[in-house]
């Protein structure tokens, strides 16, 4: 090998570089999706599960060649549940990372701050917070909700308590957090619309050590159903414990957190979880023959390896929701033939019955809440098994 060899090698490298460069030029630019997720902090369990779904969907789509040949580049930022950080990262995603889509943030309190910012910047935003105030097609034309609204949680619970269980003396219990106060108020309003005034209503600190008093007062007020609106599993467990220890046979109907797996360990006795009903989803409810809906089962079989080999100990609907958000982006980009925000808006507003795993979504120019009412149903709280639940009896 002399000079000739070296020259040949150099030429080879140069040629390789040129080929690489032209290939890079030929490949379409990646699709950048921002994902604002509170992976740490006080509200991390939902975000961690959703992140599994988002990540899995992105990997799947990329392995299959991307969306219309464009790979997805996912930019995940951990907001730690802090609205100030969420605003910072939203601006970073828009102005520095120049993303074409933003998914999240996870919590309503953060979304309230980021939705107007993303609207002003003209970036399509998939909202996964439940608070009703987040969506407004006129002020935030590019914000589309993929999860149910808070009302879609409260209404089925109210209907179940009033119509199925045939109760009319409601005791409302909320926590003093932002979400708790807002939902307890909304629940009282919806009940009054149905002609029922709660016989007892109280807000308690989510870390209050004991709820014997509150439950005692509810009982003394003649309540025949207890409806807790709180996402704090500790508080919900104490409601159930106080009910069980007082030997009070009253149904408890409320927020999905009422059936969250961590509750099991916080209960004094497993039977305290009986006669409790929480709002759940058709997609993560076992049918009468003990099977999951087809699409849920298909996703579960594919993703199980990723989530660990044993039975799931997280609520699978979180994973399904995260998975769906990426596929909604895929649907919008494919149908719009690009990432032009106005075109995306048009496509999403014309979307009718897009079948996802978590739900079937439809948006219209006047309705940016894509989640249909009939995709929720009541679950029996103590039936958690492998990520999903059983339906509550309908009489």
């Amino acid at each position, binding site marked *: 090998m002399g000079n000739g060899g070296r020259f040949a090698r150099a030429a080879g490298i140069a040629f390789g570089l040129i080929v690489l460069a032209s290939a890079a030029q030929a490949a379409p630019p990646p699709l950048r999706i921002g994902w604002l997720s509170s992976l740490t902090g006080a509200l991390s369990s939902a975000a961690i599960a959703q992140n599994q779904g988002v990540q899995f969907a992105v990997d799947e789509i990329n392995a299959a060649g991307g969306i219309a040949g464009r790979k997805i580049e996912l930019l995940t930022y*951990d907001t730690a549940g802090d609205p*100030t950080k969420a605003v910072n990262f939203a601006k970073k995603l*828009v*102005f520095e990372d120049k993303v074409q889509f933003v998914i999240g943030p996870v919590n309503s309190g953060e979304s*309230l701050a980021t939705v107007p910012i993303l609207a002003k910047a003209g970036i399509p935003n998939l909202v996964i917070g439940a608070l009703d105030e987040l969506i407004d097609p006129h002020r935030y034309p590019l914000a589309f909700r993929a999860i149910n609204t808070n009302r879609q949680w409260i209404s089925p619970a109210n209907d179940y308590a009033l119509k199925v269980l045939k109760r009319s003396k409601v005791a409302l219990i909320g926590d003093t957090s932002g979400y708790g106060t*807002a939902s307890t108020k909304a629940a009282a309003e919806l009940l009054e619309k149905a002609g029922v005034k709660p016989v007892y209503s109280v807000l308690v600190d989510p870390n209050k050590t004991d709820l014997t008093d509150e439950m005692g007062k509810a009982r003394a007020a003649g309540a025949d159903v207890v409806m807790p609106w709180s996402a704090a599993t500790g508080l919900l467990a104490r409601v159930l414990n106080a009910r069980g220890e007082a030997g009070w046979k009253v149904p408890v109907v409320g927020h999905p957190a009422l059936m969250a797996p961590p509750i099991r360990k916080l209960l004094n006795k497993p039977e305290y979880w009986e006669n409790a009903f929480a709002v759940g989803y058709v997609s993560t409810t076992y049918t009468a023959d003990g099977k999951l809906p087809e699409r849920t089962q298909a996703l579960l079989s594919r993703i199980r390896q990723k989530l660990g080999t044993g039975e799931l100990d997280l609520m699978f609907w979180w994973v399904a929701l995260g998975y769906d958000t990426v596929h909604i982006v895929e649907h919008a980009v494919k149908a719009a033939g690009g990432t032009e925000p106005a075109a995306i808006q048009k496509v999403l507003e014309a979307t009718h019955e897009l079948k996802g795993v978590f739900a079937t979504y439809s948006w219209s120019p006047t309705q940016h809440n894509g989640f249909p009412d009939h995709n929720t149903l009541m679950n029996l709280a103590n039936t958690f098994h492998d990520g999903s639940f059983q339906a509550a009896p309908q009489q």
Partner: protein
Amino acid sequence: MLAGALFLIGLPLLAQDEYQLHLACLIGCYWILIAGLNLAVGYTGQLSIGHVGLLAIGAYVFAILAGRNGVNPYLALGAAGGMGGLCGLLLGLPSLRLPGFYFAMSTLAFALIVSELILAQGGLTGGGVGLAVPGFPKPVDTPAGFYCLVLAVSAVVSLLAWNVARHMWGRALIAVRDSAVAAAAVGVPLFRLKLTVFVFSGVTAGLAGALFASLQSYITPDTFVFDLGLFFFVCIIIGGRGSILGPFLGTVVLTVLPEAVAPLARLGNFFYGLLLLMVVLLLPEGIGRLVSVLRERFWPVRLESVAVAPDLPRLARALGHKQP
């Protein structure tokens, strides 16, 4: 100094995008509060860890007046400052007579009470849902314009703080921090001085709250967590108590660092705690003094030893002795 000022004024032109400008505005808002708080913490030694409560009050006053009642934003900004000062007075009156730990704990309790009341008074504050906050009218409605407003307010506040610290009562304040008893003994009007400084810090916290709320464009009680109060406090201690540049640098570094280095954000408060502990143990004067401390250590200023040789004959003459 001049170069720094020019840099700050020219920042909107230098900033590559709106995100960087947003961070600059955020730093400005924090600094307005910290400049006032620094007088209380760094100069008079009133360890308030609950200034986030005053920030929240300013933010909500601004949001309620300018957002809901359509008051002119500049008037609302002034009202927020005034309300912050008033609440600072109310908090300061009973608690400034208390010794250090008692005072710190009552400011902590104050911050908790404020967030409790914000949640409880839902009709006024929007409760857990929070309030949308309007921006300022033209020409401050652009990010660069808003930056200029923040810059102007922080310049005025810094100037006032600097004036107080250097010219008016700076020495008296430091004397109060180091030994309240000794300060009182030499005639420093202890209580009035402490209260004035604390009310001033309340005014700046109220102003900061109003600007912060407008920058965030939406506020909820979740925004004003205790951790934020701790953050302000750490900025001052790390930067160095008893100086103005130190806490300013502390504010800049601690705001930018978690943005730039993701693992630090994961550690969150642990990182702030560690920094605070290291500074307290190793460098109580703050990182702002690191250079001068190191210089003292390695290149100490050599004190010339002057041999004192008394001029005995002259002394003797002065005393009227005769030469032997």
